[in-house]
């Protein structure tokens, strides 16, 4: 196995493109090294992207934000400006693992690991985040919900690297929130999760995005759930409709972490709770 730490995204892409064997990108390593330890993968090449300046910074502004792919969860959590603009996105990423994991893990790594239960992803989808992708010949920008195509699978080509995540312009009176259910208080993978981002005007929800995690093969954007609360003051009736729409959208499986029945039911519970938090953050009563 070869270990390389390129200084630019282009170099990283070139390394990936020229590798004949199995190549993997290392950012925080909190998934990659686990898969190596469990003998699930045998890399021939590991490309460490932490030395690439374009991937190391955070720019946060109400006109748009950019988070480098190698930024750790801990660094994200320490960025007050970003936290203020996108509390749900930051909290979601900070929920991944322990303080130790936060010291290394990245939002983009969480995305590219492509788990249906990835904590950062529903919050990013709800936020309308985009991934900036660098390829051999071109750069492209893609909505986060288009990245994961199935458990462990992404739409990235083998010689493509996500350089950063961008978050859109933040309208005034907006708020986001992310909640997940785990059996313990820490250290678990989400059994089911919900991310919500909304904007209000005079107490009425004017726009919203709702995303769910761990209820299907990929994290889901649920437009029907958003429609259930747009135009409402998030009263109980609207919340009931939100919960019902979320539960309807679920296509979960039974596995060691939860049942179909449980996930379907609790998706609605979490969406309802997350919507209330987002609404409050947007300045709603």
């Amino acid at each position, binding site marked *: 196995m070869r270990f390389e730490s390129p200084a630019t995204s282009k170099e990283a892409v070139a390394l990936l493109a020229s590798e004949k064997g199995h190549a993997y990108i290392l950012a925080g390593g909190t998934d990659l090294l686990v898969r190596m330890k*469990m003998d699930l993968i045998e890399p021939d090449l590991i490309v460490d992207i932490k030395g690439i300046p374009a991937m190391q910074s955070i720019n946060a502004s109400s006109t748009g934000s950019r988070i480098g792919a190698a930024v750790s969860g801990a660094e994200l959590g320490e960025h007050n400006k970003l936290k203020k603009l996108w509390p749900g996105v930051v909290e979601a990423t900070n929920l991944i693992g322990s303080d130790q994991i936060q010291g290394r893990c990245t939002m983009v790594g969480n995305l590219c690991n492509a788990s249906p239960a990835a904590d950062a992803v529903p919050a990013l989808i709800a936020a309308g985040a985009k991934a900036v992708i660098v390829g051999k010949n071109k750069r492209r920008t893609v909505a986060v919900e288009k990245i994961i195509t199935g458990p462990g699978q992404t739409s990235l080509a083998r010689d493509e690297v996500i350089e950063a995540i961008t978050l859109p312009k933040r309208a005034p009176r907006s708020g986001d929130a992310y909640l997940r259910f785990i*059996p313990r208080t820490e250290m678990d993978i989400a059994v089911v999760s919900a991310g919500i981002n909304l904007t209000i005007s005079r107490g009425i929800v004017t726009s919203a995005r709702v995303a769910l995690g761990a209820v299907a093969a990929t994290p889901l954007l649920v437009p029907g759930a958003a429609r259930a609360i747009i135009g409402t003051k998030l009263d109980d009736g609207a919340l009931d409709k939100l919960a019902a729409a979320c539960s309807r959208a679920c296509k979960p499986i039974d*596995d060691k*972490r*939860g049942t179909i029945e449980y996930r379907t039911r609790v998706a609605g*519970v979490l969406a309802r709770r997350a919507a209330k938090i987002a609404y409050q953050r947007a300045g709603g009563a």
Partner: protein
Amino acid sequence: MAHDYSYTKQKFKVIGTRPERPDGIDKVTGRAKYGADATAPGQLVGLILRSPHAHAIIKKIDTSKAEKLPGVKAVLTCADLPDLTGGNRDLQNILENCMARGRALYDGHAVAAVAAVDAQTAKKALKLIKVQYKALPHVTDVDEAILPGAPIIHDWVFTRGIDPAPTEPSNISQRTQFGHGDVEAGFAKADVIIEKTWKTEQTHQGYIEPHACLASVGPDGSGELWVTTQGHFTFRNVCSSLLGMDVAKLKVTASEIGGGFGGKTHVWMEPVALALSRKANRPVKVVMSREEVFRASGPTSSTSVDVKIGAKKNGVITAASAELRYQGGAFPGIWAMLGAMTSFACYDLKNVKTVGYDILCNRPKVTAYRAPSAPMAAFGVESTMDMLAAEIGMNPLEFRLKNAAKQGTRASYGPVYGPIGIKPTLNAVKNHPHMRARLGKNQGRGMACGFWFNFGGQTCVDLNVGIDGTVSLTVGTIDVGGSRAAISLIAAEELGIPYEQVKTNVADTASLGYNDMTEGSRGTFSTGMATIFAARNAIEVLRERAAKMWDIPVDAVVWENGEARATGKKHGNLPRLTIKQIAAKAGNTGGPIAGHNEVVADNAGVSFASHICDVEVDPETGATRVIRYTVVQDAGKAIHPDYVEGQFQGGAAQGIGWALNEEYIYGDDGRLQNPGFLDYRIPVCSDLPFIDTEILEIPNPNHPYGVRGVGETSIVPPLAAIGNAISNAVGVRMDHVPMSPPRILKALDDATSS
């Protein structure tokens, strides 16, 4: 020399204080050496190939490619471990568990092993071993394993304890029965009877340190083993039997142990490491991965238990019975028997009957886990007790007090009790402020009782007085939780010297006589007892030496406060001789000063605990949080109260994990789906509240200081205490452990819809 075991009420000077442990600095600086921390010149890395099948015939193992890989020094299969057990079935089972013999019996069963110059090479070699399996039907559920047509695990297992003896092999390895009186007549007299089936899933001890050892065997048949174990003398005896080595030629050194809780009472890969070393003629280190620990060491049983209890309206139990089915993994065990013995031990019952069925499955061989088998039986019994109390309209605490066992009660497992502590723990619970604390919305309180036997066993101790009067104590029981501190305290107390003047060391098997394992809550109890007698032995010598120094008769010398004092009119004015002064002259008064004792420290004194637990349940998600927890337990005498509290708290925390989230999850393919700490969910720091403790000290009449075992009982009550608290919080009775969020939410749904 005969010793007096009996308790004498004495005033202690240092017993009951809380000094710092002697191994503390090593453990906070990273210096302490655990199982994986030793190295030897030229050591190889050993790895084990494990079956991916729950049950399969091993048709062929081709090791030729692995053997040819440069850097590989030995490849091992069962052919390298011939059966030298002389037909001893128990040893044969251990041998077969260490390395499959023609058949893989569970997912993770060892099939082959390699030793190579480094981990990378060893890993590569494992992949070059080709094993041809023929998969067989498997069974992993305790109730399914005894259905007609279930795959038979061993054709040589015929159910024992059935008359007439069966002629067909069975997955029930034995039937055991305990009790007295006439339960049918008793139930006929009951006003109310509750009968219910309870299930618990399989849990693991979950020690943080994986099994690890460093083995070295030379061509002369001599060997050394450095290993993390609860009993290095037992490991020595078992390994030498399996490998055909002389016991005296295998020196086993116990490393510091990173937790055991019963799981390190048994050999797993240690005989394989020794055999690899013998074949390669190099030291071999084998360290299990966490995944291997879960798949291939010994968890505790999953169970299915029917409990029936009947009572009069006035709260007197008229009869109680239980049928207990315990899954023991791929080899026969006695786990249901222990469940059958302990289930009703807390109560004074005229008519009681328990029947245990030990059942084989395609799962790893079950081994002891803290108060083995008692928590599952207590879950069923203590939950049923609460249901029955509710049915007759009695406070569950009063109901338990009314039926609690006392001195003179015939225990459900047979004998008549001496002085015991169940009632005092219940009374302490009754008077505890926790019982009167206010509860909020969706909160509930539960309590439950627990019992464990405790035992002593073979123990020996050397006590040597150094030239400066300090004392070196050599013991043979592994220190799993601070026992060196407790044992140093005992030596200091008996000799009348400060704690700081005693250093307790755990000896290797070549340096001290045989000691049983640290299990059954025996460490401080039995080694403490041997230490008292060894110290008394040394005091005799010290008196003799003082007498020689003074040139007076030994009868005129008494030992007081760590000094020799001459008595009587003739000698009374002599200045006292300190241990230091006597030690300094030892060379001229007869040589080294030492005390020794070997003892069979029977009679560790049975132990009882009562726990109180408050939970809060989220009715929308089924999530349960323990918000307050109190342990009340009889310790006999708490030698070092910090570490007694630590045992209470640790046991309770393990019980809480078991109650709420921990479980082995098997797929339809018979493979373990959660062999890691991510999905085998032991409690994390933020899951738990502070765990309050109340130590009761009801002296054990058969220990000079009144000590009882304390380590195990505290894991027994939590399952039921939490189940009872959940029932009080949200009105559903959970009959399946772990009481995980999906199970609770389903129970809530079922309750609403019915």
